[in-house]
């Protein structure tokens, strides 16, 4: 029934981008996202799109996978585009009855859409090229200075990775319970939304009970294998920055500088549709 949902969207390949340190990739994605908000004209977006395309090419993740990231935000994209297009006041470009499109509106609509797309594509490169487990590990290490302030970074990362590990298990469990309840005459398909939600209760209650039982079992198994929190723990794959990461960092800084300089109009490039 719901067995075949794929979670996480990691694309298995052994590219340079895949092999970069997850901490660097997280930092890089963050920097890229921040820099997008500095962009003030279409050429700036062009630079960002070019750089991103370069990264995608090197990562060998097929473009259609990246484009897939658009699907869930299609509605928001169309919505913001139309709102900006139709509601912003300014120089009228085109009018039909009560519908007016202004120059400013068109500009703003294109800008917002391009920015949203670049944001989503950029973030999806991170998730396509980094295993969920490496991501949580990376976050743990990036946030580890906070543990001195009493934030339990190791525990948070451990919870995230266990949650990822158990998603398929719980999906299987849900499937089993739904089938058991269907066999007893449960109906998940008819009725209005409220009714359907109510009909899910006989699935959710046993699912929660099972989840707690699994948690108890797992806690015991972890204890039996000498788990006692993050202190004194070593890792099979310790994270080490290499030359590759240094090179990537330089490229990131270059990218940030390019975007910044263009936003100030200091590059020998035209500013198109400056905002």
């Amino acid at each position: 029934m719901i067995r075949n949902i794929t979670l996480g969207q990691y694309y298995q390949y052994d590219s340079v981008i895949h092999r970069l340190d997850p901490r660097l990739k997280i930092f890089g994605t963050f920097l890229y996202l921040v820099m997008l908000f500095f962009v003030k004209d279409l050429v700036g977006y062009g630079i960002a799109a070019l750089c991103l395309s370069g990264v995608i090419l090197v990562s060998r993740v097929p473009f259609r996978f990246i484009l897939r990231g658009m699907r869930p935000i299609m509605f928001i994209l169309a919505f913001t585009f139309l709102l900006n297009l139709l509601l912003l006041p300014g120089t009228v470009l085109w009018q039909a009855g009560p519908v007016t499109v202004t120059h400013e509106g068109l500009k703003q609509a294109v800008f917002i859409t391009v920015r949203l797309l670049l944001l989503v594509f950029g973030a999806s490169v991170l998730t396509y090229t980094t295993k969920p487990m490496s991501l949580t590990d990376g976050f743990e290490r990036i946030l580890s200075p906070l543990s001195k302030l009493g934030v339990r970074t190791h525990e948070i990362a451990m919870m995230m990775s266990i949650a990822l590990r158990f998603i398929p298990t719980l999906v299987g469990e849900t499937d089993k319970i739904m089938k058991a309840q269907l066999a007893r005459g449960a109906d998940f398909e008819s009725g209005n939304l409220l009714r359907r939600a109510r009909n899910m209760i006989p699935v959710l209650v046993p699912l929660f009970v099972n989840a707690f039982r699994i948690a108890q079992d797992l806690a015991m198994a972890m204890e039996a294998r000498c788990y006692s929190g993050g202190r004194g723990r070593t890792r099979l794959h310790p994270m080490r920055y290499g030359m590759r990461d240094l090179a990537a960092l330089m490229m990131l800084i270059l990218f940030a500088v390019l975007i910044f300089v263009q936003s100030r109009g200091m590059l020998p490039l035209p500013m198109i549709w400056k905002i």
Partner: protein
Amino acid sequence: MIDFNGVSCRYKREYAGEGALPVTALDDVSFHIPRGSFIALVGRNGSGKSTAARCMNALQLPSGGTVLVDGADTSDDEMVLTIRQKAGMVFQNPDNQLVSSVVEDDVAFGPENLGLHPDEIRKRVDRAMKAAGIYDRRLDSPDELSGGQKQRVAIAGVLAMEPECIIFDEATAMLDPAGRSAVMEMIRRLRERGTTVVLITHFMEEAAEADEILILKEGKILSRGTPAEIFAVPDLISEAGLDLPAAVKIRNLLRQRGADIPDRVLDIKSLAEWIAGNCPENVPG
């Protein structure tokens, strides 16, 4: 290797409400498991065998008496990690004891907790995965494996801690016959390496392979002896709420008809050999 000295475990049952009498899971139990031996702990549900297993790993502390693992008291907080490293444990449900989404990371979990150097972890993880026969699945997710393979990942995870003793807490109960025989094969190999094995099981066929069988009933030791001794006593197994292995049942039926089969005949193979050896006229070629 493991000593139980007058161990009692009492606990209040969950949801039992106020004034409910505590359940006695173990009642003044004493026994010794020698190093390098293979002991089967059997008994029906609620006989206290899982409680006994948890006591061996300091997952549960006895309310009376002491449990010593390699001379260390499980109630000594300082020794808990050493005890858990020495006496590894494999649980019943293969799904609920794997921590990581990648096989080799899961096997590394124990050594990582021990704080070993990454190179040493790598060595141990590879060795353990090879010993458990899952090396070629090391980069897969446990979700893609069968129950028997998952259980072998769990065993590899314990092996990577290089324990001296492994406790199997009904580790074959949820497996199909193929998975079960794979786990039993693992146990046989562990035994050859000199690892102490404690096997908690419902399956008498599995218990019959042990050096000794320890039968628990209502928290007390009902009997202890070699499989030949235990299965030779009529009604002992049924008193414990258990069932004789099929080979022993057939043997006993043949005995009732006058066949003089010795006590050491406990499994299908030795039974077949006995029949072939004693009634050659009925066995073709």
